[in-house]
């Protein structure tokens, strides 16, 4: 049994390696998008509309004669920048409020957690839809709408950790030598929260890419002619009988990104979450 346990603990974390490679490819494509795209993603050429995938246009062209490959490449910038912004702000807000809530307790904890409860009472898409009604469509509003809900996940995790650590001996010691609350949270509690937050953030990027694409598909996120993947599928839907490639390739791009970041998150969780390492095969 001990040998089996060792084998499992030491087994290669292939999912993490694949996740790292795929995510790195996506980040590189995003950075070098202008050099990789063979055509201008917004340039219309009506004489070249609805061309099926061929050697010249490997993903074909759309109803306005734009090169879908260039638009998909450029779309990675839109999707990834929105997802990264949402994750950054959600994590910053969630971790700060969560740590305060767990460490301070009392009224602050009660208030913050009630807000979290109420926000969690809505399915994310529904709340984002309601918010976008108030704020109007567009990418910035989309970021605000999704951040408004997403931070609650980070807050819950940070609160749990802070609650657990506030009576730890080293935190008591830090308090007794006169460290302020901000110093304790920043120097002693935050470093213990960060590994869980990294796992959640990498899993979240995939989820947020899917949310953004869904909202853009419904016409509430990025607006045409932006090369957003959700917008491209929405446009492709109207021509699915004649030009199925218009919806096919942006969808595959979304799935590729979500898959890459899900694998990265899964792999990181296997690596950093000690609970999973205890799983022992019994047969």
């Amino acid at each position: 049994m001990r040998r089996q346990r060792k084998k499992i603990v030491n087994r290669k974390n292939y999912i993490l390696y694949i996740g790292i490679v795929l995510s790195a490819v996506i980040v590189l494509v995003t950075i070098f998008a202008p050099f990789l795209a063979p055509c201008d993603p917004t340039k219309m050429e009506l004489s070249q509309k609805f061309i099926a995938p061929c050697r010249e246009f490997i993903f074909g062209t759309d109803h306005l004669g734009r090169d879908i490959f260039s638009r998909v490449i450029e779309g990675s910038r839109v999707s990834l920048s929105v997802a990264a912004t949402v994750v950054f702000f959600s994590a910053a807000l969630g971790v700060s409020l969560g740590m305060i809530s767990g460490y301070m307790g009392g009224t602050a904890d009660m208030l913050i957690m009630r807000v979290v409860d109420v926000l969690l009472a809505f399915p994310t898409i529904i709340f984002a839809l309601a918010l976008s009604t108030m704020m109007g469509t567009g990418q910035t509003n989309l970021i605000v709408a999704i951040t408004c809900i997403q931070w609650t996940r980070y807050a819950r995790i940070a609160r749990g950790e802070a609650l657990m650590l506030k009576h730890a001996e080293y935190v008591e010691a830090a308090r007794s030598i006169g460290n302020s609350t901000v110093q304790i949270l920043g120097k002693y509690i935050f470093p213990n929260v960060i590994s869980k937050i990294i796992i959640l953030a990498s899993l979240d990027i995939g989820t947020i890419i899917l949310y953004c694409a869904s909202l853009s598909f419904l016409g509430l996120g990025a607006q045409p002619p932006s090369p957003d993947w959700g917008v491209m599928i929405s446009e492709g839907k109207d021509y699915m009988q004649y030009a199925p490639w218009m919806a096919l390739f942006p969808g595959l791009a979304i799935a590729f990104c979500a898959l890459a970041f899900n694998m990265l998150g899964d792999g990181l969780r296997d690596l950093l979450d000690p609970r999973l390492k205890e799983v022992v095969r019994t047969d």
Partner: protein
Amino acid sequence: MIKYIVKRMATVLVVLWMVATLTYFTVHVTPGDTATAILYSVGGESAVNSDNLERVRSKYDLDRPVYEQYFEWVINAFKGKLGTSYKYNKPVAYMLKLRVPNTIRLGLAAVVLSIVISIPFGIVSALHHNRFLDHAGRLFTLLISSFPSFWVAVILIIICALKLKLLPVGGMQGPQSLILPAVTLSMGMTAATTRMMRSSMLDVMGQDYIWVCRAKGLKWNKIITRHMLKNALPPIITVIGLQIGHVLGGAVIIENIFSWPGVGGLLIDAINAKDTPMIEGCVLLIAFGYAMIHLIVDMIYACLDPKLKYGGEDA
């Protein structure tokens, strides 16, 4: 346990009131004048003049202070009166009553489909831990949770409806029109439940009592059905409950693509028409459904969890 249930119900009531408040202020406090938006959505720019504005403001009580409107709206919402739709000129509650059964039908089909697939998949995956079937199962769940449901819907329409002509493109004509939306909607839930079932089974498999069962010489099948499943299933109930909430959210998009006459389709139409009472009604109804599902799940869990069942109020 009764004390726990009463406490839980009181919390749900408070959450619902806060949800109603948030919904009201999120949707109602829109930039610009609501009366202008109503006139614009009904009759275009030419309909917006001072006479019409006055008439609309008094018809929909828009000339009263916001706090008065809010209190009246919340009280009416708890009574089930959600105002009149600007677009359809009919009571919102009536419109929702017509559409809710369709959403429930679609949601139930998706949930049942997902449970039927995910539980056996999760069990097989765990029993073959780190072998081919487990890797295949994990890859399958990773893939289906990565594909956007609306894209899968479009691809399924292209293949099953347009190319093979096996199933209808959309609408609600007979049981066969339920297949494509239900399959698409169940994807996310299937992935999450399969993963949870797998890890729950793995947790149970590592317990000492399973070793005792094996040492006693019990048959493997009996150990799986009598000892492992019994202990691995309760955490799944929570996941299923949470996922039903996601199904409610996902239904909005899927209903829109398949022209399914449910609450989701109504919500998207209302957002496009800036039909505020309808948006509030739909959002409130979905949040209410979500909160109720969570309450039911907690209660089932309380009944199944011996600590809550026998531990009384301490739990």
